[in-house]
């Protein structure tokens, strides 16, 4: 039973010179409840575009997106998003940032605080509730952004290279963290990344997109059992799958360079 259906969605942008660029070819994707789909592809292939259309922040040129059989028409609290850039509200503390969506829903204040506190705990930020975003490291800011999105209890989470700006060590910790949360809460996640390791380690399904104009060229189940431990990254199965995906992505990166 799929909760999200992407049907024949394409996106064409008008260029400044008056021409048209096709960023995304007609794309189909069915996302089932509890899927953790990681999306790989060369840069500029339309990954962000696809995610933004699902979020309702951008509009497709053709096709439609359905969430629980309802056509998506604009952004909403049912689809939480975590961006690559740090998008915490700088004038709000960590706790107030997490309360943002709850307050928008008109929840009583003590309930807002209670829910926000529980997510502060889940993302490991106890003691930082009253810090402003600028007082936090990049990893902590992204954990707050994750908590802020999760606190809204969305139907699904959309993540566009959320760990892209973090250093390697922090990034690996964040992957384990997010995976732990997904295993515990069984959220449905669309996760864009260009890191193949990340895609295989966290995903229950990995999707590879072609060079621009993007389309889905490969859609593969990831067979590793949950809960996953980071040590699976050193197993032979992991390496084999990673090798196969590396080949696929590499071919597209080369194709996209030839285009440019």
């Amino acid at each position, binding site marked *: 039973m799929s909760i999200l259906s992407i049907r024949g969605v394409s996106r064409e942008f008008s260029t400044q010179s008056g021409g048209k660029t096709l960023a995304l070819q007609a794309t189909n994707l069915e996302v089932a409840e509890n899927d953790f789909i990681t999306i790989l592809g060369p840069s500029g292939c339309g990954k962000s575009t696809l995610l933004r259309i699902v979020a309702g922040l951008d509009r497709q040129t053709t096709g439609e997106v359905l969430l629980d059989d309802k056509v998506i028409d604009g952004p909403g609290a049912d689809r939480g998003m975590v961006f690559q850039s740090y998008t915490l*509200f700088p004038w709000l503390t960590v706790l107030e940032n997490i309360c*943002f*969506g709850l307050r*928008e829903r008109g929840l009583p204040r003590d309930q807002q605080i209670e829910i926000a506190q529980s997510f502060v705990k889940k993302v490991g930020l106890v003691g930082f509730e009253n810090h402003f975003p600028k007082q936090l490291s990049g990893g902590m800011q992204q954990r707050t952004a994750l908590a802020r999105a999760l606190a809204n209890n969305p139907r699904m989470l959309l993540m566009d290279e959320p760990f892209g700006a973090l250093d390697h060590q922090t990034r690996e910790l964040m992957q384990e963290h997010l995976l732990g949360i997904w295993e515990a809460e069984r959220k449905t996640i669309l996760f864009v990344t260009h890191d193949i390791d990340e895609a295989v380690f966290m995903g229950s399904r990995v999707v590879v997109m072609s060079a621009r104009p993007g389309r889905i060229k490969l859609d593969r189940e990831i067979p590793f059992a949950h809960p996953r431990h980071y040590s699976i990254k050193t197993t032979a199965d992991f390496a084999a799958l990673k090798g196969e995906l590396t080949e696929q992505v590499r071919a597209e990166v080369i194709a996209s360079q030839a285009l440019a």
Partner: protein
Amino acid sequence: MKPLTPISTPKRIALGVSFFVLFFAVWAVATFGGFVSRTFLADPITMVKSGYTLITEMGFLKDIGMTVWRVVGGFLIAAAIALPLGVAMGAYKPIEAFFEPFVSFSRYLPASAFIPLLILWVGIGEEQKLAVIFIGSFFQLVLMIAVVVGNTRRDLVEAAYTLGASDASLVKRVLIPSAAPEIAEILRMVLGWAWTYVIVAELIGASSGIGYMITNSQALLATDQIIFGIIVIGVIGLVSDLLFKFANQRFFPWAALGKA
């Protein structure tokens, strides 16, 4: 000296004060040394003495009070209308398109050139002074506030929408708080300009105020009083500036983070 390297607070204060000292020293040398005729420039001691007489015997405090009242009154009226209009223009493009060309044109109309017209319309009473301040600050405020609000980070706007924000709460909970520190800076700056308009308004057709005292002193060749008046304006401007800065730091602690 290394470019952009900050210095300690005591050092900064010492340097700032020493320029004032230098300034008065040069002035004292120029006047006491007989390099400049007394008719055109009084010496610092005479200036302080006649300032004392002005305050104790000639009711100059009342003049100062009048001038402050006019600036604050005219400025508050301008700000009270400019704030909602500027925010509306920044947030809603049709409103901006409607007002912006006219406001842009009006801001180049010199407030002082309106004085003769305003005297014809409303006489030489307080309305005329308030109107000069209003004209001088209103259009500037509106335009600058609209620009700041319109420049709100788009990723924050998108984040708010994915958290379920409505259009109205986007304005209230994102556009306004994010622009608030810069709007406070704009108010501080334009208040400084308002000080120059009030004096001009008082030079023509007034029977009280610092500007009035200055015109009167000119007829008497009392350069000591003129200079005292000018210095009083400077001091009041400086104090209001410091109060504003202090208030901004208190109200918007997050804005100062990570800047220096």
